[in-house]
């Protein structure tokens, strides 16, 4: 009985277990490599670099679970932050400006959602279009200048800490949101519908699932959360430039996929995605402590993503076909090559200290 339960636990949480293992390994290596890693001040400060990404992966998980994608989140983030900054510079109250920006972000999400759900256009193309469109609007609003001079009660959103502790206020927002999104995805009817749609949209429709309404809802949710992330980011910087959060969508999608959410939809857990966020965060933080350039960090993260997708596919193949096929030789070699590259980059990035 207990072995069966263990087996069930393993089949359900396999990916999450692997992520935890990786986190432990990376943390261990980081701790050996730098004395500054296991330092609560540093660790807490590091979190603020990942709050916005962390917030954005939550609705992205919803969207990818349904088998769709939203490439426009970083642009929506920039649009809301820029609109807020623009209105603030024109003399509006900061909260009123943020409120209007939030309304505009709802419209941005509605546009995405309606084009995808009602007009049945492919999500990749629609959000690729609005990625340019919304970013363009941000530039149109602010041009090459920056909005600045936000009042302290606003910058508290990105810079403040809770009471006398060193815990960033934004971290609290993330934790609350992550809990809420996790509960909705795994415990409610809405969450169940997301998985049903991601696995078989037609069968869901035939079963009376309001597919269109749900898709529109998650795209609006995505944009609202993007606006919130935009406010936090602007508050952290104390200013808004129209290129704010440029390229963030790629990190967000990377982490979501690394967290075990199938890019084809229908599977994955929010726990896995949050674990992937932690993994990427401490990986980058560790490399940052080693003064590694951003490009090398990108190489390592990229390798990690490919390995994470290649290995499970290969293992699945082995499980299904027990006999060896010539095709699998090349796949294994490719996996091995990427794995070796990843490991060598990973240790090279720390070699200065590791093998001294």
């Amino acid at each position, binding site marked *: 009985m207990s072995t069966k339960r263990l087996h069930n636990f393993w089949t359900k949480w396999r990916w999450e277990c692997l992520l935890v293992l990786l986190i432990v390994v990376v943390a261990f290596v980081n701790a050996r490599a730098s004395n500054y890693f296991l330092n609560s001040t540093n660790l807490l400060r590091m979190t603020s670099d990942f709050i916005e990404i962390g917030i954005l992966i939550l609705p992205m998980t919803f969207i990818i679970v349904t088998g769709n994608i939203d490439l426009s989140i970083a642009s929506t983030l920039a649009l809301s932050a820029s609109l807020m900054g623009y209105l603030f510079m024109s003399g509006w109250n900061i909260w009123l400006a943020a409120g209007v920006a939030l309304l505009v972000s709802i419209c941005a999400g509605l546009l995405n959602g309606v084009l995808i759900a009602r007009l049945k256009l492919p999500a990749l193309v629609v959000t690729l279009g609005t990625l340019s469109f919304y970013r363009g609007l941000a530039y149109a609003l602010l041009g090459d200048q920056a909005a600045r001079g936000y009042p302290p009660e606003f910058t508290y959103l990105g810079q403040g800490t809770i009471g006398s502790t060193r815990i960033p206020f934004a971290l609290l927002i993330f934790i609350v949101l992550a809990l809420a999104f996790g509960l909705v995805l795994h415990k*409610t*009817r809405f969450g*169940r519908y997301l998985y049903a749609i991601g696995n*078989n949209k037609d*069968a869901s*429709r035939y*079963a*009376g699932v309001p597919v269109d309404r749900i898709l529109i809802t998650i795209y609006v949710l995505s944009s609202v959360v993007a606006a919130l992330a935009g406010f936090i980011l602007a508050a952290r910087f104390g200013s808004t430039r129209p290129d704010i959060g440029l390229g963030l969508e790629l990190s967000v999608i990377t982490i979501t996929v690394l967290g075990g959410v199938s890019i084809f939809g*229908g599977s994955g857990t929010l726990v896995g995605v949050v674990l992937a966020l932690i993994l990427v965060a401490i990986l980058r933080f560790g490399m940052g402590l080693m003064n590694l350039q951003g490009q090398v960090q990108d190489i390592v993260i990229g390798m990690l993503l490919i390995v994470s997708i290649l290995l499970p596919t290969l293992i699945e193949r082995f499980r299904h076909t027990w006999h060896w096929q010539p095709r699998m030789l090349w796949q294994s070699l490719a996996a091995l090559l990427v794995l070796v590259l990843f490991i060598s980059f990973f240790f090279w990035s720390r070699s200065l200290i590791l093998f001294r």
Partner: protein
Amino acid sequence: MSASMPVFVMQEVSKAFGGVQALQNVHCEIYSGEVHAILGENGAGKSTLIKIMTGVYQPDSGSMQLEGRPVVFNNTREAQEHGIVAIYQEPSLFPDLDIAENIFVGRQPVRWGIVDWQRMYADAQALLERLGLKLDPRTKARELSVAQQQIVEIARALSMQAKVLIMDEPTSSLTLGEVEDLFAIVRQLRAAGTAIVFISHRLEELFTLADRVTALRDGRYVATRMMSEVQTSDLIRMMVGRTLDELFPKQMVEPGEVLLEVEGLSLPGTFTDVSFQLRRGEILGMAGLVGAGRTNVARALFGIEPASSGRIRIAGREVRIESPQQAMALGIGYVPEDRKLHGLVLELGIDHNISLPILERFSPRGWINTRSETEAARHSAQQLEVKMASVAQPVGQLSGGNQQKVVLAKWLGTQPQILILDEPTRGIDVGTKAAVHALMSELAAQGMAILMISSELPEVLGMSDRIVVMREGRVAGIFEREGATQELLMAAATGAR
């Protein structure tokens, strides 16, 4: 017609898929210069026969001879190299290639290792002229009508020096004039000595075109006759001629009041002016050929693809149904034709599939009460005797019959007053089939109104209280249980007199 030797012979050919015997000891002789019709109900084995002829499938046993020599086709390419080519109901041209490229795709004339475009267009032009198609071979395929695309397919067959040309329901999407043109080409090919295997559900076409006819029934050979010696009634008897067995445990119930009334329902391009009534406790069978619009009517009633005009009344009250949610709220359940595509989410567990349409019941405030959900799902799965490892087992792992039971459990869970069953026993084993029929009977006896779409005439005749026959999107006739015969239904479905 040469009486000497057939160009293509199939002897004692058998083919099984899993446990289903699709063809059993079928034989067939085709002569050069004849149009040979193959006749049979849906599922009689016609398409399997064609696919064996063209090398798509390999027979389990039996042999084939081409011009007296035994042949084996491992794939369609080998069959084509021997001059056996098929064209299908829906042309399969590459829409963005032009006519000449489509004719010679994969076999382009080559000079010095590169494609000889000049010769290719000249050859294509010659073929088109021979078939009387006045078109530039540089025209893209997507600009052609269905009829023109079919002629391009014939040109492709000719360019392969086809000895046997198989045409699988080529006329089903053509207009009357186009059919005439196609027949003229077929007669011309026949005169030139090509053997033509022709499949059509329109019996009158066979009388105008075919020389001989071979009938199949339940995967077995029935007879081969000269068309000049038979009449429509003979053809229908050859096709159906079987007896009802005890597969259909029908309980006779006195039907109650009219529950569903459909009047003048139309959706342009799919069905026109469909009217019928469905009573409480009644099983209304819906027969017709594939493509007659039966499934479209069901989809319209369930709000998936709503009708554009006409009235639907439920218990005397006129209703509008524009989404599955609305249909479900009105007490309609729909077991779709394709359970893998529309009936089930294969990756999800049995429990989650059964609860999907009634999830609100387990989550009044949004939070799912998984315990009551699982219990309810387990209960309904056990009631229908679904064989499962656990109630959380993904339905994709179940057999076809068990999957169908899960779909039924799912829809019975919604407690519908009107249940639409679209091909409820397709592709499932005999045991489950009988169980499904018994269940239908019982539900009707409890007062449920059932609309059953089926392409299996014995099933329609065995289970229905009344039968609606559809043909080409229209109601071709409504028959009472007493007095309905396979011959009558078939005649109505095919439009034969």
